[in-house]
């Protein structure tokens, strides 16, 4: 079922999303299985499944099944109606008016109102809530007053969102935010049931207390073991839901999880690292590798107090060029990862990857250029560079660091040592700039290039490289209000590719194994946002 999007030219651009919402839609000739239980594995327990508090990918997936935002995504990542049937955008693109459906109800029977969203968004932004994702509302959405609410300088009630009536939600933005509607599909922007939150405090998300508006309700939760979600008969589109029960098992050991999948205990598991190719041969139909909106990269420490060699763009370029990325993607990872020469993944909506010299060259050419650059910078066998790569303890990161340091040594004569730290210690060292080169990974929080490029901003808290370019800062500021920010994004990426404050290494893929009976998995959704209500199982 495809959704028609009609754009009516009038004084205000009116977006009407018509037709039924996307839902589980078995094809002709498919026979539904008698048992519609979907069992999947997560590697670790989530700190929280409260939309306002959720901070990890797997917790967000749970929240998407237990709650529903204004808009949802279909299998390709396109926006489709959720609690809202559609929305209007004002001429100046700074006011969004969402129209809420009148048949959306909470699992306890209360109607879902615009006020529930107002409450949830204020709560997420309020520093008193101490949400690890408060920044999503305060820094990303661009809602009027969000920054001041987030810093505690203004009351949460001053947030620029209002509910003139139960079925109308008006959002005022400080500036036109081209990706604003995308943000309402994020778990942080889901509504919460005020009375339940207030009655139970932090314990409101336990099965005995929780009230949600999603297609499923939480019926059992044993931390570090299992979570069971069952169909919510009150969900407005329950008639089109097929999966009756969703079971989430926490299995820390990926090999063990895979064995249990082989034994038929699970419908969906991750693939043990390094085994993709071998297993793909054994299970060609079941094992998949989908692109993800995530980039694996190394930071140079380009702060003034960082290593002297890192100040020289020629050295940074040489290191960027002086190793073969395909050795990492094809030799080590072997799961369809894509070598990266820019930071923003090519699958990002609307983004045009700039033509970057490094990407077009062969590895011989890259290595030759790298050698020339190093020589030009005055480094060579008489004046060798020795450096350290810092990564968080993990076999995978270690293999990559070893491979890169080997290639640097062979190709450029650089002495690279590798050092690992346990996660918590690593984050502190990296955040404080106590490194020469550090490993990093970044996943987009919404499907638009700025979710990546904002890291190049000198004021970004996640700019671990310490990159500081007035030109990039200015372009990013301009992009925030531009009619079409995409050319600016491409320009930022071009500048960054030349300045090389980071070494993009590869774009992640999401690799897993699913049982042949499971259908409807959104393979083309680069954010990997899946909704159990869109899945179904066949005989």
């Amino acid at each position: 079922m495809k959704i028609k999007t009609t754009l009516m030219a009038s004084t205000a651009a009116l977006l009407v999303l018509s037709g039924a919402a996307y839902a589980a839609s078995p094809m002709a000739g498919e026979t539904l299985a008698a048992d519609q239980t979907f069992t999947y594995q997560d590697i670790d327990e989530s700190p929280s499944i409260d939309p306002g508090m959720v901070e990890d990918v797997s917790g967000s997936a749970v929240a998407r099944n237990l709650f529903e935002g204004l808009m949802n995504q279909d299998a390709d990542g396109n926006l489709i109606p959720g609690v809202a049937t559609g929305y209007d955008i004002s001429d100046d693109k700074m006011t969004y008016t969402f129209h809420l459906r009148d048949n959306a109800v909470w699992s306890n029977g209360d109607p879902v109102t615009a006020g529930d969203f107002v409450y949830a968004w204020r709560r997420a932004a309020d520093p008193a809530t101490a949400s690890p994702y408060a920044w999503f509302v305060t820094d990303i959405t661009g809602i009027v007053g969000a920054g001041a609410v987030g810093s505690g300088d203004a009351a949460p009630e001053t947030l620029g969102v209002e509910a003139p009536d139960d079925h109308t939600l008006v959002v005022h933005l400080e500036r036109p935010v081209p990706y604003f509607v995308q943000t309402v599909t994020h778990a942080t922007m889901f509504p919460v049931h005020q009375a339940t939150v207030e009655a139970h405090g932090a314990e409101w998300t336990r099965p005995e207390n929780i009230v949600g508006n999603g297609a499923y309700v939480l019926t059992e939760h044993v931390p570090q073991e299992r979570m069971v979600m069952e169909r919510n008969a009150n969900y407005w589109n329950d008639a089109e839901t097929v999966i009756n029960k969703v079971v989430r098992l926490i299995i820390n050991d990926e090999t063990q999880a895979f064995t249990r999948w082989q034994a038929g205990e699970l419908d969906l598991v991750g693939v043990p690292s390094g085994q993709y190719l071998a297993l793909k041969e054994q299970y060609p139909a079941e094992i998949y590798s989908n692109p993800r909106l995530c980039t694996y990269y190394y930071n140079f420490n380009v702060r003034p107090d960082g290593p002297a060699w890192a100040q020289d763009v020629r050295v940074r370029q040489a290191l960027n060029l002086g190793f073969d990325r395909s050795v990492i993607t094809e030799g080590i990872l072997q799961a369809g990862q894509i070598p990266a020469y820019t930071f923003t993944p090519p699958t990002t909506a609307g983004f045009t990857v700039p033509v970057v010299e490094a990407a077009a060259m062969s590895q011989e050419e890259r290595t030759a250029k790298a050698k020339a650059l190093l020589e030009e910078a005055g480094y060579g066998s008489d004046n060798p560079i020795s450096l350290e790569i810092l990564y968080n303890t993990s076999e995978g990161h270690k293999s990559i660091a070893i491979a890169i340091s080997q290639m640097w040594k062979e190709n450029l004569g650089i002495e690279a040592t590798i050092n690992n730290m346990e996660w918590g210690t690593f984050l502190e060292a990296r955040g404080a700039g106590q490194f020469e080169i550090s490993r990093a990974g970044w996943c987009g929080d919404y499907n638009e290039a700025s979710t990546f490029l904002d890291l190049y901003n000198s004021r970004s808290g996640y700019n671990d490289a310490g990159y500081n370019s007035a030109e990039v800062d200015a372009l990013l500021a301009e992009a925030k209000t531009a009619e079409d920010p995409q050319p600016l994004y491409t320009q930022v990426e071009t500048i960054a590719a030349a300045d090389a404050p980071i070494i993009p290494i590869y774009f992640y893929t999401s690799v897993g194994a699913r049982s042949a009976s499971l259908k409807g998995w959104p393979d083309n959704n680069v954010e990997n946002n899946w909704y159990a209500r869109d899945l179904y199982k066949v005989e």
Partner: protein
Amino acid sequence: MFSYIVRRLAVAIPTILILVTISFVLMWSAPGSPFMGEKLPPPEVMAALEAKYGLDQPYWKQYLDYLSNVIFHFDFGPSFKFKDRTVNDIIAQGFPVTLTYGFWSFIVAVVCGVGLGVTAAIRHNTWLDYLSVSFAIGSQSIPNYVMAPILVLVFTLWLGWLPGGGWEGGTWDHIIMPVIALSTSYFASIARITRSSMLEVLNSGFIRTAKAKGLPMSRVIFKHALKPALLPVLSYLGPAFVGMVTGSVIIDQYFSTGGIGQFFVNSAFNRDYSTMMGITILVGTLTIIFNLLVDVLYAWIDPKIRY
């Protein structure tokens, strides 16, 4: 005897206090923060979080508050990581799981270990002895992180008899594999200790006397030899029991039981200070109690020991 127990308990309390203090200091000197992730929360949120968990207080105050909550209210505080759980909740959920499979593992290890050890000793230098010894050495040299995957491979994947993990409230089919995997190495140690100590006892004078006066062999073994032979086993059982009931990280991780061992390790990685402290205190206290229990049992079994 009574005064001995009182004395030991009096020593136990400062021991636990020292344990708490050392853990507290170690924890705070470890770099990192429970609220750090790939995306560091902004300073306002960080401040709110620290205030919420009392981390904005000076260390000595945090320490005293923590102690008073634990001692007077038996409250280990909220988990720093799991927003809707307290440490008491986590222990209440995870400990019974570990206790259940730990208890069964203990029973299996003791029954099989003593049985095998005694058999081997009685049939000293026969094929039965050699078989038992090789079996014991074999099982001891397979660590449980090797044992667990083998069990899953055989019983879950090949035979399809048992679920490969999970707990589901502790039904018998979820207990079997954790028990086998956990008890194997303990059982092997017990068998070896029992065998050598039984051999020693069987060669001693009073056994020869018992045999000489024509007592049936079964009576010689069970009435006279077993009790002294089990003394060395007993000293092994105290720590072994604590080890089993407080959980093996490997078993919890491998079989996804939701037991306490899993929380323990993850809490260290997550800097979940309160969970880490709570479980440390629990394990420490149990260790002290069981060691005391073993010493008391010792005195009861061995007439040579009097306190």
